[in-house]
């Protein structure tokens, strides 16, 4: 089960199957796995969500802290996204200082959320120039069976929507025992999601399992949301050393809105 390397046999078989638009689990190359969301999975967190997508399982928790704002943005609260690829979740994850994937995941989520404008940072000010809220989003995979970034993006949005601000003391410090019903100030209509496309030979595949990911040679992640009724790409990062052709990038940009709308329908059903 915990073999570390994709065999050439698996890679060649996948290559042949992808050429016929087939996958081991019966999906088409652009078919996304269905997902389930559980909200409020950790009651000390201000908000939390657990996303299961096939065997991929991710928890995301939101904690709120107060503190002084950054000098260059006295009128804004802060967003911080972090996380770790725990050795709990895969034989491939190791303890110790974070490897690149563990740095990349929260950075991609940070950029997707920040650039979409989902969180209204200006409304996170308690006393301008002195005291502001920081939204801290922490991401931990529980089981990695591929498409961690995409599953984590669903978890981030769900957890942030699930969060309720803790109360404040008279001095403006957090009182975690005092709960309020106030949500994090959000631009309600903006909800970004990420989609990572992998590449094997000249075939693109969406939402791969771990086995498929490891057989692939290239990958590229896009964050997309809707802003003033228009789809907007908010973030992008190409990974690995395989190149992408312009036609491939254009194809991805074309199908992104449909994939986004499908996932969003499902996500919204959990949040309402």
């Amino acid at each position, binding site marked *: 089960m915990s073999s570390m390397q994709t065999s050439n046999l698996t890679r060649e078989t996948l290559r042949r199957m992808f050429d016929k638009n087939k996958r081991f689990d019966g999906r088409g190359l652009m078919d996304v796995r269905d997902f389930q969301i559980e909200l409020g999975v950790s009651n000390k967190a201000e908000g939390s969500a657990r996303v299961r997508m096939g065997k991929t399982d991710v928890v995301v928790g939101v904690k709120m802290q107060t503190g002084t704002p950054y000098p260059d943005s006295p009128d804004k609260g802060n967003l911080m996204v972090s996380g770790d690829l725990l050795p709990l979740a895969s034989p491939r994850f190791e303890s110790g200082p974070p490897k690149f994937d563990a740095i990349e995941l929260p950075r991609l989520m940070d950029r997707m959320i920040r650039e979409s404008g989902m969180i209204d940072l200006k409304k996170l000010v308690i006393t301008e120039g002195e005291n502001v809220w920081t939204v801290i989003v922490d991401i931990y995979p529980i089981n990695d069976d591929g498409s961690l970034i995409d599953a984590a993006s669903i978890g981030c949005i769900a957890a942030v929507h699930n969060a309720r601000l803790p109360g404040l003391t008279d001095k403006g410090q957090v009182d975690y025992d005092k709960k309020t019903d106030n949500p994090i100030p959000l631009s309600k209509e903006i909800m970004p999601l990420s989609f990572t496309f992998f590449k094997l030979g000249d075939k693109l595949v969406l939402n791969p399992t771990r086995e498929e990911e490891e057989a692939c040679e290239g990958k590229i992640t896009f964050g997309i949301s809707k802003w003033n009724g228009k789809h907007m790409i908010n973030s992008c990062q*190409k990974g690995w050393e395989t190149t992408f052709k312009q036609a491939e990038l254009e194809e991805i940009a074309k199908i992104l809105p449909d994939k986004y709308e499908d996932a969003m329908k499902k996500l919204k059903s959990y949040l309402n």
Partner: protein
Amino acid sequence: MAIKRPSGRGFDEARKMDAKVGIIPNADGSAMFSFGDTIAIAAVYGPRQLHPQHMQNPQTGILRVNYDLLSFSVADRKKPGPSRRSQEISKVTEWALLPVLNLEGFPNTVVDVQIYILQADAGTRTAGINAASMALAHAGIPMKNLVCSVAVGKLDTEVAVDPDNAEEHFEGGEGHTDMPIAKIGNTDEFTLLQLDGKIPPEKFTDALNMGNKVCSEIYEIQKNALKKFTEVEA
């Protein structure tokens, strides 16, 4: 056009670019590349023996990139040492350069690429890639081509190539979008693509095309700088 660029440049106009090869005598290869006030310098050391040993690959040499800002290159002094940002940029730069390299003739070795930003005015990673690509060629590392890199910006709804720092802080309308790309010289192969901001999918092609045009210009500048250097040597 509704808006003008704060810099006064045309939307498809990059800043003045400059390139020079052979700037660090100790290095096996070195180069400088600048977009206006953004200056990147790069040095290549190797192929050389790789330590720690467990990182050695008996099938091929490996590429190791380190990108960072010099502490005084930005308005607020940058604390020296690697940050998550610099680690990410180092890694995507590695991925941007690897497709043109052939290191199979140098098993168990490493090619170290050191990129530092002397002066930052946006577009530092792309300037760094351009410099590194020339430095690798200067070092005589087997390469099938050069890599050319530029950032494409978007101010409100207007795509604008090679934004400077002031333009990166453009607010209003759809705000500012930054999309660094890198390509294998005069081909259709993208080796780096990142994006921050808001760009409608239907505008994405325009943005790529604008980047393509400037990458062709960069390609010529890089080749000229390399040629100039070899002429001086000979």
